Each structure stands twice: as structure tokens, then as C-alpha cells.
């Protein structure tokens, strides 16, 4: 994890009343030091999130609008038959809840990506990347920080949805935690990679149009795949190769205490692929950093 290690040393010299530089480095460069850095990065992301109350409410309102208005409106039109993991007929509202929870993570993954672009523009990305830990570990910490926020949001949604007809067993809320973690990692890794491609904040609207909406609508979030197949085989296969479908299914199964191995494999594989691409893109010697002129994209 680290290339070297230093003992913890105090950097203050109370006797002299001045900042002492007799020690080589005030912190630790070993694995414990990295965990401190990881904690600090997660903490900053959570502080920023809770400071932006409108972000919290808009993240919550979006799926609730879908649940209370869209799903309620379609409950009589879109009956859902018995398909795993459900053991009985379920109402449409019950069916869409996992998809809407992962939709929150999808938006959050892209929001994290947006904040990376913002960090690049305001320069705080430079501060992060001058930390002495290996760069991929810093990007991984950024990823974990974004996922932490998305999990808080997803559970806040589930808490409100609980009072609607959710039908989720109590143990499902616990079993879904690792699924939310994996789904959030995948969507965050995609966002991280996209942030390396988007040069300016203004270009981010196209990410919404070309990434978020196609991923969400061409998936099993709103309609079961067997129904999609009835109308179009091509669309069915598009949904099947869409990693978002597998993230939704992983969470859906977990919420009912079940495990979906294919979904899990696709989610982990996609996470690794996009995280690797993001690490290459943020490498100072390769990727966009070398081509475009660094984290802030400045030429001189």
C-alpha cells in the first residue's frame, strides 16, 4: 500500500514555541497512515454532502416522485408476475424500489464525478494528488468517499419508502448493505473514469443525457426483463449488457436475502475495468494528465 514508512512523530516543539522541522515528516506513510487519509477523504465528502442540504433533498425527492407518482399511476397497468427473487405477485411499487435506490447511487456516482471535475477546476484535486500516498490509493479513497454518501442517500430513501408498501423483510436491509457498496463502487468507478474525460464543468450536461438516462431506462430498474423481451429482443439484450441492470438485480436479490452470482460478477468486473481506466487516465505520465496538461488542464 505504501512505499515507505515513518514512525509517528510529533511536529511541534512546545519548548521552543515554534514549529519544529527536526522530524522528517509529521505523519505516517504506512498502511495506518493511508487509513487515516482514507478516513479524512470520506469525512470531507460527508461534510460537503451534509453542508449542501438541497443536494440531500433533491437526491431523496427524485426517487420518491417516481415512487409516489409514477409507480402509483402505473400500478394497475404494469402488474408484475412471480419472478425471482419475489415469491409472490408484487405490486409495481414494490418492484421499482430497488431500481430507484440504485438510481440514487447512479446519480450520486455522476455527482461525485461532477465534484471531481469541480475539484480539478478549483485546484483541490491538486492538493489531493500531492498527498504522498500512491495515486491509485487516493483515487480509491475518493471512490469510497462517494460510495459512503450514496449509501446514506439510498438508506434514507428506503426509510421513507418503508412507510409505503415496500414488502422488504427486515434482514434484507442489512443484507443489501454489501450490495449497495458494490453497486456504488461500480457506478462511482464509471463516474471517476468519466470525470477524466470531461474537461470542463459545462460539459457535464452531456453526461446526463448520454450516460445517466440511457443506463437507467435501458435496465431492469423500471420494468422486468421478461416484459422488455416481449416487446423487443434487441432491447432485452441491450438491458442485459447494461451493467446498471446487474447492479439493480444484485440489490434487488439482496433486499430479499438472496444472492445473484451473475449480477455480482458483472458488477465487480465492471468496477475493476472502469477503476483501472480511471487510474490510467489520472496517471501523470500517461492518460489525460499527460495529454491535456494536468489535473486542472492548464497549459503552462
Amino acid at each position, binding site marked *: 500500500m505504501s*512505499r515507505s514508512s515513518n514512525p509517528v512523530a510529533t511536529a511541534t516543539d512546545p519548548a521552543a514555541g515554534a*514549529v519544529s*522541522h527536526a522530524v522528517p515528516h*509529521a505523519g505516517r506513510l504506512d498502511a495506518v497512515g493511508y487509513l487515516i487519509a482514507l*478516513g479524512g*477523504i470520506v469525512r470531507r465528502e460527508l461534510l460537503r454532502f451534509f453542508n449542501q442540504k438541497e443536494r440531500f433533498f433533491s437526491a431523496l425527492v427524485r426517487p420518491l416522485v417516481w415512487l409516489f407518482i409514477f409507480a402509483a399511476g402505473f400500478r394497475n397497468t404494469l402488474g408484475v408476475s412471480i419472478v425471482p427473487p419475489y415469491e409472490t405477485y408484487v405490486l409495481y411499487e414494490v418492484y421499482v424500489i430497488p431500481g430507484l435506490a440504485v438510481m440514487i447511487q447512479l446519480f450520486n456516482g455522476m455527482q461525485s464525478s461532477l465534484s471531481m471535475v469541480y475539484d480539478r477546476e*478549483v*485546484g483541490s484535486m491538486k492538493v489531493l494528488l500531492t498527498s504522498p500516498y500512491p495515486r491509485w490509493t487516493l483515487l480509491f479513497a475518493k471512490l469510497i468517499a462517494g460510495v459512503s454518501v450514496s449509501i446514506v442517500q439510498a438508506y434514507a430513501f428506503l426509510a421513507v419508502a418503508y412507510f409505503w408498501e415496500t414488502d422488504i423483510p427486515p434482514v434484507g436491509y442489512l443484507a443489501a448493505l454489501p450490495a449497495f457498496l458494490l453497486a456504488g463502487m461500480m457506478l462511482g468507478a464509471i463516474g471517476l473514469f468519466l470525470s477524466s474525460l470531461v474537461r470542463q464543468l459545462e460539459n457535464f450536461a452531456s453526461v446526463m443525457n448520454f450516460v445517466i438516462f440511457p443506463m437507467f431506462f435501458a435496465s431492469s430498474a423500471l420494468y422486468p426483463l421478461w416484459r422488455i423481451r416481449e416487446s423487443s429482443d434487441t432491447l432485452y439484450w441491450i438491458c442485459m449488457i447494461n451493467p446498471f441492470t446487474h447492479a439493480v438485480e444484485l440489490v434487488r436479490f439482496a433486499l430479499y436475502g438472496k444472492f445473484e452470482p451473475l449480477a455480482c460478477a458483472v458488477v465487480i468486473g465492471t468496477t475493476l475495468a472502469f477503476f483501472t481506466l480511471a487510474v490510467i487516465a489520472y496517471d501523470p505520465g500517461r492518460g489525460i494528465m499527460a495529454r491535456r496538461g494536468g489535473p486542472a488542464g492548464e497549459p*503552462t
Partner: protein
Amino acid sequence: MSDSPALDIAHVSHRFGQRSALSDVSLTVGRGRFMALLGPNGAGKTTLFSVITRLYNNQDGRVSILGHPLDREPSRALARLGVVFQARTLDTDLTVAQNLHYHASLHGITRRAARERIAHLLDRVGLAERRDDKIRTLSGGQSRRIEIARSLIHAPRLLLLDEPTVGLDLESRADIVGIVRALVREEGLSVLWATHIFEELSPDDDAVVLHRGRIVARGRAGEIGEPGETLEAAFRRLVSEPRQAA
């Protein structure tokens, strides 16, 4: 290693596509020395800082910080380096303490150790009473002082400052210069200070002039230029002449 210079840059070149941003740049910042990096806008100062901070990989040449080569021992090298970037890089929605704790964590410093250090550094930059205020409530000069405190949290031995006084009023500028010079004088910190404001230099400072990616003059600030020529006049002449290596 104990007698290696604070910063040793040897034959560093960097290109953006076909355009050369740095060409065969070599300089050495001695321990406990204040070196001014002078250059007009676009001279390559920020690119050089990006190479030193490993935001870019240098394409040719080598960079060592306190004897640690940046390419082979990046963690050890970066651990000994403090940076104040040209752009403001504090989180304006967070408080002073939250910003400083975040930076301390990036260097693996526990919250407990950081608390003590933050109190000390805020005292040093004269802003102890603003600890719990949000950055957005601070003036430009106060933000800069916080950035200097932040750059010192991990007890670096080399401090890079990229035009830290640009956009500040005279009083704030004098504060910033005074704080950094005191660090050099009292604690033996080594400083590389990019600027084009000549009043910030004293004749005894080391100085290099960067122009179009090349070093065109070097020496003590008071000795650069022809006899009788001020530093500012020498600088204007150097950056108006066709490029030549020093």
C-alpha cells in the same frame, strides 16, 4: 542524504504535444535558502511546479527533494514538500479547522496530533481566532495565510509557493512575505517562491529567471543584470531578448 540540497532539478524538459513548456531546466535550492523563480506569465513557472509536485511526470531530466528522487521515491519526496498553489484550493464551504484536518489526514496525521499542530500553525499565521469560521468568510489575504498553515501541517522541509501574493493588497502581501521569511530565518525552511513582484525579493536571495521554458539568468537577486542595472530593468531586458540559456 543529509547534505543533499532541498531541491535539485537537473535538465528537466516538458512538452505539451509539439509545444515545449520547459527546456533543459536545472536549478538547486540549498537548505535554508529562499530562491525566487522569476518569469513573465506563460514562462513555464506553473509547469515547473507541476513537475516538482508530480502532477506531471517530467519527460526528461530528474527531480530530487531532500535527496529523494521523485521518480523512484515519490512518497518520501512528496512527504517533505509543502505547496501553496497559485489557485485558491481551500474548500470554501468548510471551516478553517475542517480544511486543515483534511490536509493533515492526507499526510497520515491522526486527528489528535493534527489538533495540536493546527492550533500552533494558526497561531503562527495570526488566525487562531478564525479556527471555526468558514473559509468563505475570510479575506483573500487570510485565505492565503491559511493555505500557508496548511502547507506546513506535515512539517515539510521544502516549501513551494506559486505566486502566492497575486491579487492581494499591500498589507496582506507584506504579511505573507513576512511569515515565509520568518520560516526560513527561524526554522531553516527552504523556499522556492515563484513571482513577478520584485519588491518581494531581497538582494541576498537566490534567483533564477525563467523565460519561454528556459532559464535565462541566475544568481543572487542583487547581482542579476549589468552593473548599475536594477533587477526589474534586468528582468525586462532578459524577457524581451531572444531566448538564450544561462
